[in-house]
């Protein structure tokens, strides 16, 4: 079956440093990938997405990289701030218009001042 997993359950970085959160997926048919941020007591918040026909996409302070050869996805956060502390999930869908998103178990990012 399909599964999405993150390499590390926790990540601690110093404020101002760059953060890299990794994710491995198993379904080679996945066509669409999303990163979510979940703060305590809140629902997941959309950060950035990428389609399988791309290998890189940039947003504000965030970059997502997709390596389909090794089925690996990463989220890079530049100049990490205390407000970035949260649990980060990667999710995959078979295509952009399929409702079911399959989530990994998340990486907890802690930013030290």
């Amino acid at each position, binding site marked *: 079956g399909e599964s999405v997993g993150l390499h590390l359950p926790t990540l601690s970085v110093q404020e101002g440093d760059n953060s890299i959160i990794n994710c491995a997926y198993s379904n080679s048919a996945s066509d669409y990938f999303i990163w979510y941020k979940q703060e305590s*007591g809140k*629902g997941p918040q*959309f950060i950035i997405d990428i389609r399988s026909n791309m290998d890189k996409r940039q947003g504000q302070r965030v970059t997502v990289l997709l390596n389909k050869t090794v089925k690996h996805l990463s989220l890079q956060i530049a100049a990490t701030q205390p407000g970035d502390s949260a649990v980060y999930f990667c999710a995959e869908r078979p295509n952009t218009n399929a*409702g079911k998103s399959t989530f990994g178990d998340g990486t907890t990012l802690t930013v030290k001042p």
Partner: protein
Amino acid sequence: DAGVTQSPTHLIKTRGQQVTLRCSPKSGHDTVSWYQQALGQGPQFIFQYYEEEERQRGNFPDRFSGHQFPNYSSELNVNALLLGDSALYLCASSLRSSSTDTQYFGPGTRLTVL
């Protein structure tokens, strides 16, 4: 512009009881998906509603059922509650016709089954 709202925020039930959770989608959205998130895990897809019909379903038993109303709001019903149903239940809304069908999540309903 109101985002996705869910009610109630918290709920405590006992085994065997039934529960109904409610969701109002983000303004302009027509599709509602429900997820179950156990403590320390990622959300698991329960089902999705569009045009008042269940369109997709995850690996959940028939005890989990739902409904979508003409105003796009939705309910999740769980019958014969088990201890293992204790979780955060998340509602996500999206616009079916959009290019990526991005899902926006509500704050969730925390269900505790005793």
